[in-house]
Structure formats: C-alpha cells, structure tokens
C-alpha cells in the first residue's frame, strides 16, 4: 500500500490526466452496460453509443502504438510496415472465425417469442436473409425467413419498438416472426485462442522479417520494412482465395464469436471491455519488459549497437525478441480490430496506417508508454473530430474533408522533429544521478577494483 502511495506521489499532471482518461473509458463502458440493464433489457443487445466507438478507436490505436514502441522507441529501429502485422492478425482471426464455424444445424421453422434485431438490421430496413437473435438463446442466431414482414408490421403498429430503438435494439412482440437458423461458433473462449494464434502468426512474421535484417539500422532498415509491408499488402490484396481481395472477409453474424453469452459485435460491452483489458495487459507487459534485462539490452542497442555487442549483450537475440514481441502485440491488436471492422479488407492496412502509428509515437514521445497512449488518444481523437466535422458540417461553413487529418499528421511529424523531437511525454528520467559518495559505495559493492583510493585518476579514464 505504501508502495502505491509512493507511486502516486510521483504522479505529474500528465499522469493524472491519463488516470482520469482511463477512468472515463471504464465509466463509458460501465454506463452502457448498467444503463441498459436498468432498462430491463438483456445483454445481447447492449449497444455502446458513439462515444464508446471513439474510445474503442483510441484504445486499439494505443495497443498498436505500444506494440510498435518496442521496436521504434526501445530498440531504436524505424519500422515503417507495422500495418502488415495488424493485417496478419486481423486476417488470421477472421479466417479462424470463418473456418471454425460449426456445421450448420438447421432448426425447423419455429415461432420466436421475441426477436431482437442486431446491428445489421438497425437501418430499419430488414430484408429477408438478415439475421436475428433469440433473446433466450443468444448463442443461436437466425436468418430471418419470414421475419421481415413481421418486423415491418410491428413498426407500422408502432408499439414498443420505438422505445427500444433508443438503446439500439429493436424488440418485437411475441410470435410475430418465424426464424430458421444455425448454431454459431460455440467453442467458449475460442476467440481468445484465435487472438493468441493471431499474435503468434504476426510474431513469426516479425521473426521472418527480422532475421535477414538483423544487420541493418537506420534508413535501410526503415526502407526494408516498408518494402516488406508493401509486398504483404500486395499479396493480401491480390490473393482473393485467401483474403477476399478487395472485398475482404465479412464477419457476418454466423461468424461472430460468442463471449459471455453474446455474439461479439463492436458495440457490445463485452467487446469494449475485452479491448480495455487487452490494453491494460499490454501496458503492464510493456512496463515489465522495459524494466527487465531484455529491456536494458534494447536500451543499450538503441544507444550504440556496437558498444552493446562489445559489452556482451546478445544483440541478435534481443533484437529478434523485440521483433517477436512487437509482432505479437500487433497481431493481437489486429485480431481485436477485426471485430470492430466487421469486414476485414486488406486495402486498409496500407502505408498510411503504418505511418499513423509512427505518428502517435512521435507525438507522444518515442520510448514512452504514457506517450504512446496519449499520442494515440490525441491523434485518433482529432481524427474522429475531423471526421465528425466533415460528416455533419459541425465546424460551421468550414467544410473539412476527412483526408485533411493526414495533413495534420504530416505537420505533427515535421514540427515535432523540428521543435520537440522527444515528443510530448518523453520517457521519464531514471531519477537524479547518484551523489559521489553514493556512487563510490555502489562501485565498491560492484567490484573491489573500485575500492582503490580515489587518487588514481587513470582508472576513471580507463573505465570510460
């Protein structure tokens, strides 16, 4: 407890801001989950509104930024192809979901007591062939066979549906629809297994890319990662049998994984808290890694690779580990991202996405965990605001096209490098340097050689 107090005492304004932001994020999720519960509705149809959608964008971007930080911030290598790791993660998860769909078990036409329309139907134009969930059995999803006319009839009747619409669901009176369906991905926790697989696949890709590039640094490393990412991008775009090409893999209702009794959509509270938990895990893991022996090795490599090699650090191993960790986080992030996307198209994982992640790090401060999170929050928040402004023309007559945000990103990169290359929240100093007598004591403890009288300056010289 006292350690916690110590820790809190060291907080600066930025940390309090982060804590407040984190609390806000959790609050949004809780409000949504509880608020809808209080209305007497189930969990299957809980929709987290617009604010939560923005929060999700930020959380996911923070995961990407932390993953990339391992390579850029800590090891000091500029990776311009991080989007390919996210892409591989997203594709592995969506392929896994599509492939592990259980054999369709046809149900006979059955009267449904109550229908809740899912996200796909929210446009109020339900068509036959849409999907429907039965309240009592959220693990079952149905294709609407005769439901559509019933939905329309209910809408015309103007009953409870309108009230229910406000929380995003659409509830129909008993016995109005007939549905025929099949059981979906029933294997509990299957999604998490897939996430780990996605991470592993990306980590392997990181190793495959990392091994031949171990000797490269600086510009050449950056341009090789860029070329590699472009090759992956072209492959995912052109190999339609695998990735669906330009159309992508659509995670229709029957492919959605079931978590805590509800199919996972981007606006369910289950998904929201999974992403929150993932970010928290990544932050904790990043802190631990940074403080570990490997973290020290990375710092040494960043400072001077030759010196690190000379002082006995297994540079190759440490670098490979950084590539694998970075890839793993990117893959898991991509797997989470797939659910939000709904349709995983290869096209969106392009160079701009990679550069956006780099931009988050540059803004927040390369090598800083807080910086990565803050950078993601600022850039994605800004992006969403600009998108909002262009959608609704909220910013007066100043019609800002959504592409304009990339102008802002570019300006951020240029101006920060010019005026504040360490970013807004650079990595914390390691504390004040030890006082001379303290240092002497530490040296004496480390090696008897240092215990020699301090009147022998050549040793100092030799040590440096």
């Amino acid at each position, binding site marked *: 407890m006292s350690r916690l107090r110590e820790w809190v005492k060291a907080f600066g304004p930025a940390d309090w801001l982060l804590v407040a932001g984190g609390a806000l994020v959790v609050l949004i999720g809780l409000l949504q989950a509880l608020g809808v519960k209080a209305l007497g509705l189930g969990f299957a149809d809980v929709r987290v509104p617009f604010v939560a959608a923005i929060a999700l964008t930020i959380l996911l971007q923070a995961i990407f930024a932390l993953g990339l930080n391992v390579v850029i911030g800590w090891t*000091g290598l*500029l990776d*311009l192809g991080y989007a390919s790791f996210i892409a591989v993660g997203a594709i592995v998860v969506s392929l896994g979901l599509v492939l592990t769909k259980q054999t369709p078990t046809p149900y006979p036409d059955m009267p449904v007591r109550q229908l809740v329309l899912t996200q796909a139907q929210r446009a109020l134009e339900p068509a036959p062939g849409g999907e429907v969930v039965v309240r009592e059995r959220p693990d079952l999803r149905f294709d609407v066979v005769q439901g559509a006319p019933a939905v329309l009839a209910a809408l015309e009747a103007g009953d409870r549906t309108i009230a229910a619409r406000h929380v995003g669901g659409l509830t129909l009176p008993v016995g109005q629809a007939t549905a025929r369906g099949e059981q979906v991905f029933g294997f509990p926790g299957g999604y998490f297994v897939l996430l780990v697989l996605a991470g592993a696949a990306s980590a392997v890709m990181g190793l495959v890319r990392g091994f*031949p*590039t171990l*000797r*490269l640094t*600086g*510009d*050449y490393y*950056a*341009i*090789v990662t*860029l*070329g*590699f990412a*472009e*090759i992956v991008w*072209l*492959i995912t775009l*052109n190999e339609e049998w695998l990735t669906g090409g330009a159309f992508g893999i659509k995670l229709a209702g029957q492919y959605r994984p079931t978590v805590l009794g509800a199919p996972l959509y981007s606006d369910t509270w289950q998904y929201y808290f999974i992403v929150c938990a993932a970010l928290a895990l990544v932050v904790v893991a990043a802190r631990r890694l940074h403080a570990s022996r490997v973290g020290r090795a990375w710092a040494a490599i960043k400072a001077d690779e030759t010196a690190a090699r000379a002082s006995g650090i297994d540079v190759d191993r440490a670098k490979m580990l950084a590539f694998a960790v970075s890839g793993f986080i990117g893959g898991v992030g991509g797997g989470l991202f797939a659910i939000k996307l709904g349709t995983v198209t290869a096209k969106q994982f392009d*160079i*701009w996405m990679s*550069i956006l992640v*780099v931009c988050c790090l*540059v803004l927040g401060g390369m090598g800083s965990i807080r910086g990565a999170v803050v950078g993601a929050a600022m850039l994605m928040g800004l992006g969403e605001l600009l998108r909002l402004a262009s959608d609704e023309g909220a910013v007066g007559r100043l019609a800002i*096209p959504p*592409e*304009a945000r*990339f*102008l802002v*990103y*570019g*300006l*951020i*990169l*240029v101006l920060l*490098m*010019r005026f504040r*290359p360490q970013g807004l929240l650079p990595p914390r100093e390691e504390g004040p340097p030890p006082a001379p007598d303290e240092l002497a004591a530490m040296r004496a403890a480390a090696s008897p050689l240092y215990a020699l009288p301090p009147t022998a300056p050549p040793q100092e010289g030799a040590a440096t």
Partner: protein
Amino acid sequence: MPLHLAESGWSLFVLTLFNALTEGSTFALIAVGYTMVYGIVRLINFAHGEVYMVGAVTAWWLFVTPQVPLWLALLLAMGVCAALGWSLDRLAYRPLRNSTRLAALITAIGMSLILQTVVQLVISPNFQSFPETTRATVKDAGIAARAAPDPAAAEVGELRIGAEVPVWPGERPTDGWVPIGWTRAGETEPALAWAPGASLEVKQGLPAAVNADLLGGARIKLPLKDVLIWIAAAVMMTGLHLLVQRTRLGKAMRACALDRTTAALMGIDVNRVIAATFMIGSAMAAVAGVLYSVKVGGNISFRMGYYPGVIAFAAAVLGGIGDLKGALLGGMLLGFAKAFFATYVRSEYDFAFCFSVMILVIIFRPYGLLGRPSAVRA
C-alpha cells in the same frame, strides 16, 4: 497495362523491351535525385516521390486549365519542382542537419504526407490524365452555315449545348465558330466543320505527334511518347554527368559528397550546394513525372509518386548510392525487372517483385553493384 497479352512471341518481347526502357528511364530520372541527395546529406528524401507527383500534377493542371502548350507546361513544372525541392530543403531538412538521421527521415515522411494530402485536397482523389485529343464543348446551339468542304457530307446535325465533340487534327476552332457535324465518306466517326456564328469552348489535347507511331508496324508500335522519355533520360543524365564532372558546382558537389565538413572548411558554401542538388534532382523528377504520365495516361493522382519513389530509391541503392552511373544502371535494371515480370509472370506483382529485389539488394549488397563495401554501412 498497355500491352495486350494476346500478343505473342517476338512482338510481345519487343513491346516489353520498349516498355522496360521507358520504365527504366523513368526510374533512373527519379533515382538521380535520391542518389545525389543521399550522397551529400545521407538522407532518404522520402518526399522525392512526391516531387515527381507534384511535377506531373502541375503540368497536367497547366495543360488542362490555362491551356498551356505541353513543352511550356513541362518547363514550368520543372521550375515549380525545383522551387519545391529548394523549399523542402530549406524548411524541413536544413534545420535538422545536425540532429539524428531518424529525425530527418521522419521529417521526410511528414513532408511526403503533407504534399500528398495537399494535392489530394486540391485536385480531388480521382485519377486524372492528359486529354488524348482536343475536344470542343458547344456553348451555343444552332447552325449558321454549312461550311463543309466535303461533298460527301452525309448529314448536318444540330449540336446540343454542352455536347463535347472531337476536333480534327490540324483544325483549331476558336470562339465564334459553330461546329457542324457530318460524316466523312468512308468514316463512321462524325467530323466537324467550323462555321461562324456561335461559341464553343476548346480543351486542348496532346499534340497528335506525341501519339504518332514511329515504327508504323501492324504489331509493333513505338509511340513518340516512349521515345521522348528515352531521349529525356539520355540527355539529362549526360548533362548532369557533365555538370558534375566539368563545372565548379559539380566539383563542389563531389567535394561535399566526400566530406561535408572538410568541404566547408575549404570555403565551399555547403548549404548552397545542397540546395542546388535538391533543385536539380527535383527538376529531373518533374521531367520523369510529366513524360511518364503523358505516356501512361490516367495515372495522375496524389498517390502516383509513392511506388515509383520507393522503387527509384531501390534503383539508387542497387546501382550504388551516391553514384550517378549507378542510378542509371539501377533504374534500367529495375525497369527491365518490372516490365518483364509484368508481361511474363504476373502483372499484379510487378511492384512486389521490385520491392523483393530492393530488399535482397539492401540485405546482401547494400553498397550496390558499382559500389565497394565500406566499413561504415548506411
């Protein structure tokens, strides 16, 4: 893909060869800018591909909107790009000359993003092209007189306002003349005569000579626009070679590439030399951008500079970075690789093949084909 895969045998080979020469010349022209800048400043000017793009876009805009002739548009685009290269160096790179190379590279990426977005906002994200033929838009309906010199005129039609009509080569309608449509004997396309009486708006197209076929063969075509790129590449590379080897500025460039600090101590204004390098490289990229878009058609957009830019960097590395002859060699090799891969293997993966070549070269021979291994690797 301008080539038809229905072609076969030696004609396909020859067409691919022409294509490869064109691509290679383009890459070489861009690669020169990379290699000169890298040779002196040790910076991957990531925005160089965008300079190429700005060159093409500027010339296209000048050609389409103020209707400037093509040669003038090309010259103006070169000027604009030289100014752009100068300001890139002055505003973005020079302040960072003494900071880390990572910072400079990130700045270059930022400039690239800014240029791309600005162009996208200005000309819309759609693909544009130099209009192939001159076309006239009718602003006023009606026919004043039948001025057709052709006795075989089959029909005289009234043209709607807003209708867009092709203009015959050699005829340049002006305001005050109204188009009259008829069909020439033996031709199905309606032709036009011009009679006084109404207004029309003329949009110029590429000169017919540019599209003209130099070989005139039935199966093998060699349009002038390909040859233009070859000539431009040859002339500009020779000129640059002479500039670097024979002039004071060239000598200063070589000195800066060897050792910037010592060059400064010898009284060379290093910043001026670097600015000149950026301007020359940018002007050459502009030539590549304009001529290549004239050749290909329909490729002008804010993203057109990205792949050629990266491939040209690869070309510079392949030939040995900092070496002008290396840029030419590397550009040609990658142009051949791309064209032949596209024709004979899979056209979707032509750029992916180039990227693979680049990665392999950087990993196994980072000093390039003409370079020598050095202790300090970039």
